[in-house]
């Protein structure tokens, strides 16, 4: 019986090797450094249906490529090949002699000659027809799912806004009904409406936050605040809730924290609220402690570690991994036992990302969890005396001397304000539109206008602008508070610009509204003169001075006031230009606009503003930072213009 012969020999001569190369199960091309095909193996020739003489020294590799792929080869592939020495697994369609296309996957490598220069290029060509079909399908599916995720975020953002408005009406209506002394079951039902409404609102806010965060439209807004006040407030709010679970909620703040912090208080509050709320949910009969520790500090920055430590149910390692994902809870029992949307931690984590940090979790099942994060924040003022603010409650307030006009296209919102007015004896007037409000003002005088910003037809902004230009100064200067369902810096800037005294966001917190009314009414009592009082120049860090101007014009009052009139007008133009920059980020307009103000700022001795403008040049195009600074700068210009007009009126 013959044994099977196994050939262990390697090819002996270069001819033997060449023969193997010729029939290799892949295409092989050798190119000159200029790209001409020097050698093509038989496999390649038979795939492409060409004779050797038609290709060698006759064609370049790119001649086989359809034009779009050729563009890809020249702009993407060749450059990298020259720099990297090899580029692999690139997909090309090659045009056969009969015009048909062959899908291929290509590996490429340069052959280096003298002085390390590219002398030749080798290509290996593999057929790829079947797989490319799958790959294209996969790619299509991937793109479709990304698009779907994006539309989901948009949809959530839009719907959340739409849903907030009616919820606001329900909550406030239930609060009002509370003042009619409901009896027995009525009271209980009202409580149900109220707490369910609150719960729903929180949920909607979470969804909205998450979609905003996913769309990456949330930028930090920094201002100075006192950390220990914030903690005290949070503990006060959450202690009753913790008590229900027999949990002791306390906070410990590092005594070395002696300054205020400059950071995004609202986001930090939201982060802590989420973490404390979570800890309370999962702790029974135990303790929750919030620690704020100073880890280190420099002359202008402080590094904090903030911990929320509980003795609750804890989590296993794999559960810790899962909880940061949106819509996911640690395990499926959590929902049935504790409820919730699974959004809290993922929102918290994204908020922390906005602040340049991230959430860390240490947890032991059955023993409790510690959620912590670190923050580097700028230092603010030193903390001196802790002051306790006594907010006014509306029950003690009598606003019977006030005539309040509420402008809102939604009757339910008008009703809410109407009832509040009734409770504090203010005289209520309602208008369904900006136009109607203006009609009202023809015949009536008001002490205060509460203006919805988003109305069909004439918006609250338009109406305010129209009111501010009325001939009768008493009507033109009536304090106006805007109501907005959207919270954004842009709206606040715009509101200031059209002449609103303040903006409150919906749902209107009644205590805030009363605070505002009391503030404005005390101002109303003071306001006798015709100077608009709603400009506290709060954005001016430099107090403008007229002394340079006086010496320049030799104390010629007429010349000075003429200059100031023109300067104020220039500033109006500059503000308008900069608002355009907010929209389109045009660097040219920014430069031109700020340049126009150079002389004015110099005359008014506002040097730090000029340095702010100069420093902003370094932030150009950093959309977030630049945007925030620009908003501040616009406010400075607005205040400067108002200051000038104030001087002129004196």
């Amino acid at each position, binding site marked *: 019986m013959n044994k099977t012969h196994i050939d262990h020999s390697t090819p002996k001569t270069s001819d033997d090797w060449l023969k193997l190369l010729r029939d290799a199960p892949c295409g092989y091309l050798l190119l000159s450094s200029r790209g001409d095909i020097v050698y093509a193996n038989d496999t390649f020739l038979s795939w492409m249906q060409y004779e050797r003489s038609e290709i060698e020294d006759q064609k370049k590799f790119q001649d086989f490529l359809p034009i779009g792929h050729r563009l890809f080869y020249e*702009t993407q592939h060749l450059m990298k090949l020259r720099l990297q020495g090899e*580029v692999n697994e690139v997909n090309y369609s090659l045009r056969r002699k009969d015009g048909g296309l062959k899908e291929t996957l290509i590996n490429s490598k340069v052959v280096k000659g003298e002085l390390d220069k590219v002398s030749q290029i080798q290509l290996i060509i593999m057929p790829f027809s079947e797989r490319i079909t799958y790959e294209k399908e996969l790619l299509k599916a991937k793109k479709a799912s990304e698009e779907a995720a994006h539309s989901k975020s948009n949809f959530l953002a839009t719907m959340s806004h739409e849903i907030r408005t009616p919820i606001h009406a329900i909550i406030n209506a239930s609060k009002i009904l509370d003042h009619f002394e409901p009896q027995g079951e009525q009271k209980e039902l009202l409580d149900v409406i109220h707490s369910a409404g609150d719960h729903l609102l929180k949920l909607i806010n979470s969804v909205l936050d998450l979609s905003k965060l996913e769309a990456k439209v949330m930028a930090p807004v920094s201002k100075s605040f006192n950390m220990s006040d914030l903690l005290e407030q949070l503990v006060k709010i959450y202690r009753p809730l913790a008590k229900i679970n027999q949990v002791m909620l306390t906070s410990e703040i590092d005594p070395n924290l002696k300054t205020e912090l400059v950071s995004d208080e609202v986001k930090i509050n939201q982060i802590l609220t989420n973490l404390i709320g979570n800890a309370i949910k999962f702790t029974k009969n135990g303790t929750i402690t919030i620690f704020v520790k100073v880890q280190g500090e420099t002359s202008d920055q402080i590094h904090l570690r903030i911990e929320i430590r509980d003795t609750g149910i804890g989590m296993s390692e794999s559960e810790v991994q899962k909880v940061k994902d949106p819509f996911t809870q640690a395990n499926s029992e959590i929902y049935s036992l504790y409820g919730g949307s699974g959004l809290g931690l993922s929102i918290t984590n994204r908020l922390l990302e906005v602040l340049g940090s991230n959430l860390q979790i240490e947890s032991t099942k059955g023993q409790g969890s510690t959620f912590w994060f670190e923050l580097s924040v700028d230092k603010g003022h030193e903390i001196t005396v802790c002051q306790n603010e006594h907010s006014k409650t509306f029950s003690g307030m009598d606003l019977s001397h006030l005539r309040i006009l509420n402008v809102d296209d939604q009757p339910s919102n008008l009703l809410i304000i109407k009832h509040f007015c009734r409770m504090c004896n203010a005289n209520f007037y309602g208008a369904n539109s900006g136009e109607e409000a203006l009609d009202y003002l023809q015949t009536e005088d008001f002490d205060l206008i509460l203006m919805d910003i988003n109305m069909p037809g004439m918006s609250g902004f338009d109406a305010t602008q129209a009111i501010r230009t009325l001939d009768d100064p008493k009507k033109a200067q009536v304090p106006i508070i805007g109501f907005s369902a959207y919270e954004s810096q842009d709206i606040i800037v715009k509101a200031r610009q059209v002449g609103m005294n303040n903006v409150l966001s919906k749902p209107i917190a009644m205590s805030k509204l009363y605070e505002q009314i009391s503030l404005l009414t005390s101002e109303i009592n003071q306001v006798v003169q015709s100077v608009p009082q709603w400009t506290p120049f709060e954005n001016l860090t430099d107090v403008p001075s007229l002394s340079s101007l006086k010496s320049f014009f030799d104390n010629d009052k007429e010349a000075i006031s003429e200059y100031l009139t023109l300067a104020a007008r220039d500033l109006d133009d500059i503000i308008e230009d900069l608002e355009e920059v907010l929209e389109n980020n045009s660097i040219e307009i920014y430069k031109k606009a700020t340049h126009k103000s150079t002389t004015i700022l110099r005359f008014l001795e506002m040097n730090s503003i000029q340095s702010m403008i100069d420093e902003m040049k370094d932030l*150009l195009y950093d959309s977030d930072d630049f945007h925030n600074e620009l908003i501040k700068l616009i406010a400075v210009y607005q205040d400067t213009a108002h200051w000038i007009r104030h001087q002129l009126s004196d």
Partner: protein
Amino acid sequence: MSTLLHKNNVKITGNGDQAMIFVHGFGCDQNMWRFVAPSFENDYKVVLLDLVGAGGSDARYYNKQKYDTLTGHAQDIIDLCEFLNLNDIIFVGHSVSAMIGALVDIHQPGLIEKLVMIGPSPCYINDENYHGGFDQKDIEELLEAMDINYLGWSSSLAPVIMGNADKPELGNELKESFCKTDPEIAQEFAKVTFLSDNRADLHRIKADCLILQCQEDIIAPETVGEYLKEKIPSNSYTVLDATGHCPHMSAPEETIAAITDFLEL
């Protein structure tokens, strides 16, 4: 480091007073100048940069609206020159960046003393009286090829999206990866590049220009080079022996010589 220098990953070398700015085209980054730029370091202050979205630029500055036209990139270069206090510069632009150079000159006349255009084209799409070399569908085919090669099977062209600043151990592996681009930005830049039409701007170019035309360049064919020669007010037109679209990579000596001749004029 200044924000602006970081934004465009600016690298400055060389001994001269006059600045020579090299700007890469579509598909690569400042690495493409490595065979050419060093030759000018003795006589010039050599400034290399990556357009926002390419190479080592900071992609966070990428803003679709701003870079929707070539002017956005031109504006970046004007800002950079202002920041570095550069005047009378020599601008060397490859491919689409030759047109970015033209826009810099138009928006800030006098900033550029001499403009070197390597494989320039003011418009890539054919129309009735103009042969740019491509039709709309060719560009779509390119985008599809980018799609499949950036996002699909192939890995070697796949860009390094993940930053490695916080993972120094990856540094060495990534060292040899050139011309990285975020795939979405690369697609946008491809559209902006190949759908741009700056033919109407050519007569407004004030700087002295050198047009370097290659043989067998499918992206900027000779008919386009001749069109530019006719339309740009002050230019020298040189046809190189080099073939393809990147003479500064495939034939650096010839390219250096042509640029040097022009600068010594």
